[in-house]
């Protein structure tokens, strides 16, 4: 499929050089490769620079509120399991204000691919530190350097039971596209944390900073076994000197949340609702009254 089918007529407002461009491109490539039509996919985002991504695409898009795309996407995925649901949001949105949903989505395992635009900073609000900012990072709200240990999203995802954990880099849209394809093919929740340079506010974690540290897991060690949670745990903790990219963890065979919902087996809430539209069938409820007699 031609990825241009996903182009929208809107004007992009990201800063020149922003890592988000590559993420947008990678998502289009990944969808095209899977031959998914624009109306078959729903991209849900929150609020932030990166969360504007759906505005720049021709797909079903829902730009929600700050920190809440995961539960909105979960509702959509449960109501219409035929939609391919992708969440795209920033590190603040995902791990800061949205942290609780992140935690519980990992263990819930809905069929959602979650791409985090992790620029280690709050872009849209002009440069405050984020949960993933490296300790000591100086911003307007951390003039003496941030004092919290940076959140390790991959480690938390593993601890919380995520069945697919990957890391991409905005300097490599091809690899990112592959990760997105793998995430979407994965049955269950897939986290793809993307190192995304913010050229305007993050003068520390730049393209060069990342480039000098990253390596591709699968290239470095062909025997790396992404089904091993121990290996993934270890890799998730590499950061200061060497930063692995690729699929750290991929465990198939675990049922998704949707798989377990008996009501979804040959139906979906959406279908139920749509059929009622023409055919309310009141008599089906009549017997329920007996439990009150």
């Amino acid at each position, binding site marked *: 499929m031609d990825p241009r089918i996903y182009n929208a007529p809107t004007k992009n407002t990201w800063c020149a050089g922003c890592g988000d461009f590559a993420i947008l491109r990678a998502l289009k490539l990944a969808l095209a490769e899977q031959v998914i039509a624009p109306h078959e996919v729903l991209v849900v985002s929150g609020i932030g620079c990166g969360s504007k991504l759906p505005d720049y695409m021709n797909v079903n898009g829902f730009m929600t509120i700050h920190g809440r795309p995961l539960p909105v996407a979960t509702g959509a995925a449960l109501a219409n399991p035929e939609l391919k649901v992708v969440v795209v949001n920033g590190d603040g949105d995902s791990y800061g204000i949205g942290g609780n949903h992140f935690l519980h989505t990992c263990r819930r395992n809905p069929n959602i691919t979650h791409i985090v635009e992790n620029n280690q900073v709050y872009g849209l609000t002009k440069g405050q530190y984020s949960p993933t900012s490296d300790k000591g990072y100086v911003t307007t709200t951390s003039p003496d350097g941030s004092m919290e240990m940076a959140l390790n999203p991959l480690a938390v995802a593993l601890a919380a039971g995520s069945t697919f954990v990957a890391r991409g880099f905005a300097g490599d849209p091809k690899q990112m596209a592959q990760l997105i394809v793998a995430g979407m093919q994965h049955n269950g929740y897939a986290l793809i944390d993307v190192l995304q340079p913010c050229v305007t506010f993050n003068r520390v974690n730049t393209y060069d900073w990342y480039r000098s540290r990253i390596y591709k897991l699968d290239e470095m060690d062909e025997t790396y076994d992404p089904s091993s949670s121990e290996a993934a745990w270890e890799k998730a903790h590499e950061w200061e000197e060497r930063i692995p990219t690729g699929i750290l963890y991929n465990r198939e065979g675990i049922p998704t949340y949707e798989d377990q919902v008996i009501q979804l087996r040959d139906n979906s809430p959406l279908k139920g609702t749509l059929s009622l539209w023409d055919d309310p069938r009141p*008599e*089906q409820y009549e017997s329920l009254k007996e439990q009150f007699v």
Partner: protein
Amino acid sequence: MTEKTVNDLSIMIGGDAGQGVESSGAGFCLALARTGLQLFALQDYRSQICGGHNFYEIRISDRPLYSHREPIHVLIALTPESVALHLDSIAPGGAVILPEKFEIDEAPLKERGISVDSLPLMKIAEEHGNRLMLNTAALAATAALTGFPLEYMEQVIRENFGKKSAELADTNVAVARAAHELAMERFGEDFPFRIEPPKKATKRMLMNGNEAIALGALAGGCRFVSAYPMTPGTSIIEFLSALPHEYGVVAKHAEDEIAAVCMALGASFTGARAMTPTSGGGFSLMVEAVGLAGMTEVPLVLVDAQRGGPSTGLPTRTEQSDLLFTIHASQGEFPRIVTAPTTIEECFEAGWRAFNLADKYQCPVIIMTDTFLASSLRTLEMDAIDFGRVVIDRGATVKSTDVDGESNGYLRFRFSDDGISPRALPGRGTATITAASDEHDETGHITEDSDNRVRMMNKRMQKLETARAEMKSPILYGPKDADLTLVCWGSTFGACREAVDEINAEGGSSANVLRIIDLWPMREEEVREALESCKRRVLVEQNYTAQLGKLIRMTTGIEMDDTLTKFDGRPFSPPEIKQRLGLEAGSGNEVGPKDLQRADQEYVVRRLR
């Protein structure tokens, strides 16, 4: 005492949490209702699982009941505390049944002609079964006291316990029989308040407001419900979770209320009819997402089952104190609909109607109830829940692929005179749908353009005017011209209705009740007209600040003449309303003074502030 009162009494069973007061009370209700008697039953408990006084109050009659009411005629006191607490609520000629000898001061009771009987019920329970069956014994004794045939009770016992084991049912029945026998011996047929099953047993349901909302929602096509447990909203998701799978209702207990409301919103975005029930504290957490639904025009049904506030407040008690909050909740301005059913029948209607309103006006719809309405049981006629009456109207939801061919892309937020834009669903046709919480243009894409902003605000807000046309008019109950009009909303209607009936029956002055079900947008002109023609307007609200009064004044300028508020978490009862209006009945149903007017409670009839 020779004169007997038949089928007009209230029975209360009081004890400690953990003594099974509620479940046995509910069982007794079922036994009574099956005979064709009409009931109103109320539970009262504290926010703690064990310990602490609980009670269950059952009012019994031949005619339909709309409220609990003091006095009570039989008090089954499983603990000495129960006697102390309800002393003043017992009618002269009534009875107190104790399951063993308690150290209580019987003099004040005897003085008022109340009999106090301790029966060795605990002993009977232990002999024929075990200590846990005390409440069965007590209720069987009550049946004996009031002349209610034991057979109905036995049937319910067999049903309820039979599910677990036949043996359990047998022992319970044995306990009941022994207690009944003993009590028959003790009481004979002397007790003046009698229960007589009607000749013909009309089949009726025993239902509470939450169950009615859940049934209405189900019949209205609700297929997705997400919630985080919060009393008294929880039982809605619990009821829908327990439905047979065939109904296809997906129920999600979420990690918190923010997730709950967002999941419902996401489900609704795809086209499913989705709901999220909660109570005030949970609603507080949902506020931001309510604004998201307003801005992105996603239909969303919420239930706020109010309880005693502020904050955690009185978690298991009743109050109507979220009205102005829900009407104004969330930053900025957007249309929403707030409706408050006043009866269990109206709860059922609200359950399905809310989805039609949400779909037609593409906005949040909030159903407001309270602990009293949500959890009190009443006997309902079988056709009070009429699935055939349920209408499913999805408004301007576009069914198929109608919009696929639209040039320039599909305009999800197309400008229109009534503010409503045809809504296509993602994934159902080839059109793609974009929605954003930022201000957006007709396609849904973000824009800060000033002209577009003004038009979009006008479009969205116009929906409120369009909706106003189908909002319910205020409803007057009682004679058209009356000396006194009680103005109310929500669950207080039941007590108002009975109070007014009695006032009118007693002659002297006349009264009626004006209730407003659709609170936002309100039929302001009609409310104004209705109120302007009233002689004396008295607001009755279960809150401190008289919120409906404020709302009416804000929208119509009209001020009430008097205000009755109550905010101790206990529901209004008809005698209390009459007493506070200075219109006590001269009937035999008199009550002790302390029950209605405690000196230090300062239930002043206040001017509206």
